[in-house]
């Protein structure tokens, strides 16, 4: 039995939430406490398992904990999962955020509690599967699995415009994944006509071996699918709506993990599979990343809705991530992967705290707040620390990601890096302005005087997020050492083949 578990660690990891979701179906809907407690226990177990994997992970050993078993033998499709440093970090992020989300939803989600938790557990299986799949078809299945629960999370438990936001989210993502599916089939067909064998293993396409001209369309299809997910400018307009309307827990997972799948996909598919097309479109991708950084920040200045501001700030921060990826230097790509984690933690924490404010005042408008520092000192302190981490203050996590992205980009494109670095000024402007408007100054609304500060449950959630924010800020090497071999391997595939 123990042997069975240790040989199938990743399968257990992936299907634990789905199994729990199936079990939840038998819970009576009125047993809200039991549903919450059970889900929390399962997600906590998932976190423990992820930490165990972290401890057992060997940075230099490439993909590990691999499992390979025939699945749809007729098409030579396999259950093929494995973990390298990059997926390790993403798995850690996912399983770290999940218990926080479940714990933080307790007071906010009071209707359809069972369905809510089932949706999140299925979503978790989808996310973990996407990060760990090493078979094209498997990846696509998990990618689609994520879509449905998220659609319902926004559409059922969201705000006033939830249906519009949910449909928009669904259509944008579905268009992307449809293109991706076509590209997968086309590539497998090409390989079949060349070799006479069906091959769905992702590794087999490192690189794809297609002629430069034939790389263009599959490359664009994959990259567009991921660019929508990230989102890159100008495919970002689904994001502010989805974020603003989603419940706090949905926003945390959406910003924390789902957006990362776009960047993860670029690093796993777009970059190593199509070197020639990549070289051809690199100026565009670098350029759009740069535009995203500045544009996202500028749009933030114009926001009156705190949640929307944080949503747009993601466009800017993810711009840094894609810039780092497409600068293709070891430092910049490492920084980008680290920044994916950082953004998940910081933006997750920001959405959590905005949720705290929303629960108390039922508004997200900054003008409705002001001077909260007096009544909510702990919330203020935590929000400030998280905002500073998002601004990239040295000593907190965000700085190292941005620094590595920029210094690595500078080696390849000095001017681009210099312009991108101005993003550090703009992020300070919009976030500190938000802090100023919400927390400082005199109390201008009577309703804000008697608010209660964080309760124990909220404090645990926020403090849990702060621990890695500070830890990565002080010692980023620990995580970086685990991802650099995988990144150097990926870059070594590309570098030789780029014209």
């Amino acid at each position, binding site marked *: 039995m123990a042997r069975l578990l240790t040989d199938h660690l990743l399968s257990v990891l992936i299907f634990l939430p789905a199994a729990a979701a199936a079990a939840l179906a038998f819970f009576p809907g009125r047993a809200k406490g039991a549903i919450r407690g059970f889900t929390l226990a399962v997600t906590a177990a998932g976190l423990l398992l992820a930490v165990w994997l972290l401890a057992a992970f060997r940075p230099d050993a490439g993909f590990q904990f691999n499992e390979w078993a025939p699945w749809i033998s007729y098409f030579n499709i396999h259950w093929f999962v494995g973990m390298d440093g990059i997926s390790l970090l993403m798995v850690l992020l996912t399983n770290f955020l999940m218990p926080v989300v479940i714990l933080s939803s307790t007071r906010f989600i009071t209707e359809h509690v069972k369905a809510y938790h089932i949706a999140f557990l299925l979503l978790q299986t989808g996310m973990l599967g996407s990060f760990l799949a090493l078979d094209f078809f498997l990846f696509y299945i998990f990618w689609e699995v994520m879509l449905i629960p998220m659609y319902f999370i926004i559409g059922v438990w969201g705000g006033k415009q939830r249906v519009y936001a949910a449909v*928009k989210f669904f*259509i944008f993502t579905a268009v992307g994944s449809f293109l991706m599916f076509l590209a997968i089939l086309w590539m497998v067909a090409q390989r079949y006509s060349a070799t006479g064998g069906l091959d769905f293993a992702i590794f087999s396409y490192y690189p794809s071996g297609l002629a430069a001209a034939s790389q263009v369309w599959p490359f664009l299809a994959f990259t567009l699918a991921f660019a929508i997910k990230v989102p890159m400018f*100008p495919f970002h*307009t689904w994001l502010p709506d989805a974020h603003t309307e989603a419940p706090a827990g949905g926003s945390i997972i959406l910003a924390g993990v789902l957006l990362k799948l776009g960047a993860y996909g670029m690093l796993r598919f777009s970059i190593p599979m199509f070197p020639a097309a990549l070289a051809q479109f690199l100026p565009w991708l670098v350029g759009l990343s740069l535009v995203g950084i500045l*544009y996202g920040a*500028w*749009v*933030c*200045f*114009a*926001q009156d809705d705190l949640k929307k501001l944080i949503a747009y700030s993601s466009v800017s921060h993810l711009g840094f991530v894609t810039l780092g990826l497409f600068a293709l*230097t*070891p*430092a*910049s790509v*490492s*920084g980008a992967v680290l920044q994916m984690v950082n953004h998940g933690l910081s933006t997750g924490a920001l959405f959590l705290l905005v949720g705290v404010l929303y629960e108390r005042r039922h508004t997200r408008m900054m003008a409705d707040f002001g*001077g909260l*520092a*007096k009544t909510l000192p702990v919330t203020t302190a935590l929000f400030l620390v998280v905002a*500073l981490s998002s601004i990239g*203050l*040295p*000593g907190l996590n965000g*700085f*190292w990601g941005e*620094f*590595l992205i*920029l*210094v*690595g980009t*500078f*080696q390849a494109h*000095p001017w681009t*890096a*210099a312009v991108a*670095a*101005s993003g*550090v*000024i703009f992020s*300070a*402007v919009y976030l*500190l*302005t938000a*802090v*100023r408007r919400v*927390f*400082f*100054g*005199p*109390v201008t609304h009577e309703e804000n005087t008697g608010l209660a500060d964080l309760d124990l449950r909220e404090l645990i959630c926020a403090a849990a997020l702060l621990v890695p924010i500070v830890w990565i800020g*002080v*010692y*980023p*090497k620990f995580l*970086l050492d685990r991802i*650099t071999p995988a990144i150097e391997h990926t870059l070594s595939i590309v570098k030789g083949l780029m014209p």
Partner: protein
Amino acid sequence: MKAALLLIILAPLAGFLINVFFGRRLPRAGVTAVAVGSVGLSALLALFVCGAYLSAPEPAAFEYYTVLSVGGVTIPFALQADALSILMLFFVTFVGFWIHIYSIGYMEHEEDYARYFSYLNLFMFAMLTLVLADNFLLMFVGWEGVGLCSYLLIGFYYQEKWPADSGKKAFIVNRIGDFGFLIGIFFIATHFGTLRYEEVFAKLQADPGAYLGVAGIIALCLFVGATGKSAQLPLYVWLPDAMAGPTPVSALIHAATMVTAGVYMVARCNLFFRSSPEAMAVVAVVGALTAIFAASMGLAQTDIKKVLAYSTISQLGYMFLAAGVGAYAVAMFHVFTHAFFKACLFLGSGSLIHACHTNDIFEMGGLRKVMKTTHWTFLFSTLAIAGIPIWAGFFSKDAILASVFAFAGHHHGWAYLLWGLAVVTAFMTSFYMFRLYYVVFGGEYRGKGHPHESPTSMTLPLVVLGGLTAVVGFLGVPVVFHLPNLMERFLEPLTPAVEGLAGTTFHLSHGMEWALMIGSVVVAGLGWLAARALYRTDASWTWVKGFTARHPRLYDTVFNKYYVDEFYDRTVGAALRGVSRFCFSIIDGVLIEGPVNLSGFFVELTGNVLRFLHNGNLRTYALHIVLGVAILLWLVF
């Protein structure tokens, strides 16, 4: 030594952590003990480290752990003790300790006592990290850290508008500077492959010719950072508003220590600057212009802290002027003396504000009789900043003027102009400081209530710092006195002579040195006399009042600081707001969302049409089939 250096920065950090987590539950005495004790420990250890260095003046660096190592970029957490770090370490911990003591009295009635001291300790941690760092990135960590503490402490009274806005302003303006600093770091990392001072400067020294172009660019990028942190043109605008913070904070952060970090950084990187005469010229010109510009704004201020703030900007300008002409040791000497007299001036102003409950100097007056200690220490430091002999500022300012003059004489004739500006600034400095002195201490008391001397916890630091303003100048005695110039000798390793790089000292004849010295004393004396004539008694103000009444526009322009803030708001601020609205309303709202929603509309429309067809009526379907077959037949044949 290794442990001592680490403990110097960790002690205030521990103090911060204790007070931030438990401060609200600790009794005041406990908060005080933690805060002052931790900084006291740092100061004692700093003395130990200074002693160890003086007995064996060898620079030493210690590595504690590797922060990261990726793609050829390695960042160690490492501290170093060399002459420059030791100098900064000494006065930062010394002045910092006395300002902590002073704060006990000054913040006595403050509700958020623990929060105040926790920020102050965090500042000490960041400042000491900045000066002890052995690489550019760790310096940057401290650099941004002190900026954060500055933000927190300026906005300490966050419920009021001015402090809350000013803190934000300080952070953002500093970020603009930090942007330049970051670019400089990218250049260094890319071209030198390391960020450790020792390795970078060794490479530069070994082959200065190889880095000539890039070194100048690096120097200018770093200098952009310095103009932010050290409040130079055009980024000085945050410092006057930084006065919204508690006064001891103004003394510690916005006068004695943090704002001099830019000068420290330029001195630390002197090899870069010396690689590029253009970069040096930029530093010198910006310094001289800032010095005179800020001094002129100081002439018309009525808020005691604003006067001191402009004087700080002006004095920092002097320091950059010195650095710009290659006199790095002299610049650091002025940093050192300035720390004592300016801290004393600010603490003195705090004592006055504490007593009179106003910042307006025209609501004070006659205080020399009731606040004897404050009066004497304030007078001492006024003499020091004005440059009156034996007080500290005389030695350092005279050295700056002499260095600029010598530099100008050495093939850089245009620098005589800078020297001229510096001399005029010296006059203005002496004038506005004695104006302040006479208005506050001379005449009769014009305010409300009955001011009285401050408690011992506040006057003791005044006496210590004020007394030292008459002493520390002797560390840098000019050569003409045939006494050892200790400061110059101590800082000698800072500026190694390298062939191919600009020199750092230029010779002056003894006669010329005497002449310059006497000249600078005369200029300071004239400023003093002019202020005395115009402001000594309440009756003597009539001329000034008449003058400002006759020239209202001139007075308003100076009083409103040349409307620079308004100018920035209407250009940079307005541009940003406009771009932001354009992006959000036009690009996002119309150009992107338009087609998206339009396609959504068409999908819906198609759906409605199709729904009309799919009405579930079997006969309609039959009709469709028949129609379809008919069309097919028509197409085929």
